[in-house]
């Protein structure tokens, strides 16, 4: 029997990647983007499994729905209640939560979760790399601004300004970016 899986994911590219990993298992997959109507849409679709990024703030909406499931609704059980601990731990570390319909066979859930976990681990790597790049870019901008301030204040060349900042950083056991930050803040206060 085919399972119907819902992915709650506003980013189309990411949603597509999760779909690609689940389709080979022969299941039907529907994507719901962000939105106020999340709970209503999930109810209408009545899926067997809902997958959502743990970092998605809409997750609490699903939580509420799972708690509120009345006798007329399809029973929604928590994934964490039903499957083995290792799988759950891996899922949480990968940043994905799953809501699973009560009574679904554990091995069927496990196959879906294995595929989803692999995908979300990849997302986490990508997110970390993006964060590292972003931080490097910000530090670079900060250092450039501080260099400009030092050049103007001391009447030195760009190379000399950078050398001064690097020496200060080494003397104080700090990062050049931290020294640059202090210069920019101080300049802002004194101007």
């Amino acid at each position, binding site marked *: 029997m085919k399972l119907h899986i819902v992915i709650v994911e506003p980013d189309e590219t990411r949603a597509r990647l999760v779909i690609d990993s689940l389709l080979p298992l022969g299941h039907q997959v529907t994507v719901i983007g962000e939105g*106020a109507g999340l709970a209503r849409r999930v109810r209408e679709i009545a899926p067997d499994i809902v997958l959502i990024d743990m970092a998605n*703030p809409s997750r609490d909406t699903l939580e509420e729905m799972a*708690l509120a499931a009345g006798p007329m609704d399809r029973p929604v059980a928590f994934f964490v*209640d039903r499957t083995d*601990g290792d799988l759950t*731990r891996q899922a*949480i*570390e990968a940043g994905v939560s799953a809501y699973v319909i009560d009574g679904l066979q554990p091995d069927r859930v496990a196959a879906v979760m294995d595929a989803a976990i692999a995908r979300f681990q990849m997302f986490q790597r990508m997110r970390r790399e993006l964060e590292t790049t972003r931080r490097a870019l910000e530090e670079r901008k900060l250092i450039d601004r501080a260099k400009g301030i030092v050049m103007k204040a001391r009447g030195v060349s760009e190379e000399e300004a950078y050398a001064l900042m690097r020496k200060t950083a080494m003397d104080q056991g700090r990062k050049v970016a931290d020294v640059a930050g202090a210069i920019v803040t101080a300049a802002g206060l004194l101007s």
Partner: protein
Amino acid sequence: MNSAPLRIGFVPLLDMAPLAIAHELGFAQAEGLALELRPAPSWSSLRDMLLWGQVEAAHILAPLPVAMALGLGGAVARVDILQNLSMNGVVIGVSTALADALRAAGHGFGFDDAHRAAADLARVAPARLRIGVPFPFSTQAALVDYWLRHTPLSWDLCTIPPPRMAEALAAGEIDAFCVGEPWGSLAVETGAGALLLPSRAIWAAAPEKVLAARHDWVGDNPERTASLMRAVWRAGKWLCDRGNRQVASELLARPDYVNAPVDLLDRALRGEMVLSARGELRKVSGMIRFHEGAATFPWRSQAAWFASVLAARHGLDAAAAMASAKAICRTELYRRNLRGVGADLPGASEKLEGALEHPTAVASERGAMILPADRFFDGHIFDPEAH
């Protein structure tokens, strides 16, 4: 000594302040602890991080460990309450449209009368009021239900993570909200709504967030637990000093903590609330407490109150639920670990809730404990032994 950082989860809110202060002002370091504070986007994610060991301890909604103790909402491990982090600090707000209707109906926005606010709201509210709360197991959900249960109003509670509350109000997803600061004030600032009441107009001394940890972790790490409790307690005491408020707001405003404007954080810390874009100012004493009035003691009677509310909502046996809730309040650890740092310790670990009309001196080890007024707006007194 174990030097690995202690990971503590939090949801961005003013009342996570004791953790940020313990970390930033060296109270943790003085205990030989390195803290790693990890923000969570939602309460369910934070709960899972705590249950599955991604964090050792957490800043968590007071009723949430109680719900877990009752087996509600996917609990897989016992979580204990080590101490309370904050008291009050919550506001109820309405959309600009509802605020206008309330004004037209003569509501004066006195910001202190829960009876009046409910009665006036009942005259102008839509057939079913949609009220945003941060989580099904929250002080906010419990207080809204308690406040409105004997009114003609019909309402639905909608779960919305605190930082999103103002946005949800502006988008018309909800008509009103009950949320921790500064997210209520953000709705005022963005013009989405107006504040109607502080939560303390419903329950004058409501426990809000607690410091919670897994029961097995606490058992395996008595020293780290004690160090953490002392550092956090000292941070709460520091926050109690008026002179420190400005520094606290500046620190908390940072992106890695609450990520909100300094002056919004300042409002609840000072107890000077701006109600709407019109600029009405209301002073609220005890708007949020981190220390004074035994705010950090994990009263078993407060856990029992939440248990009685949850038992009624989910059809559980009230007496059994209250007994389970009391058992997770580690009052004995509080006494053992904080006696040495100067914390005053109450003679009892539970009390009648709602019995104090005025601040009242009670028996304590140092004889100097003054409990704040703690009345419920309807005058009800909750006896944790009565069921």
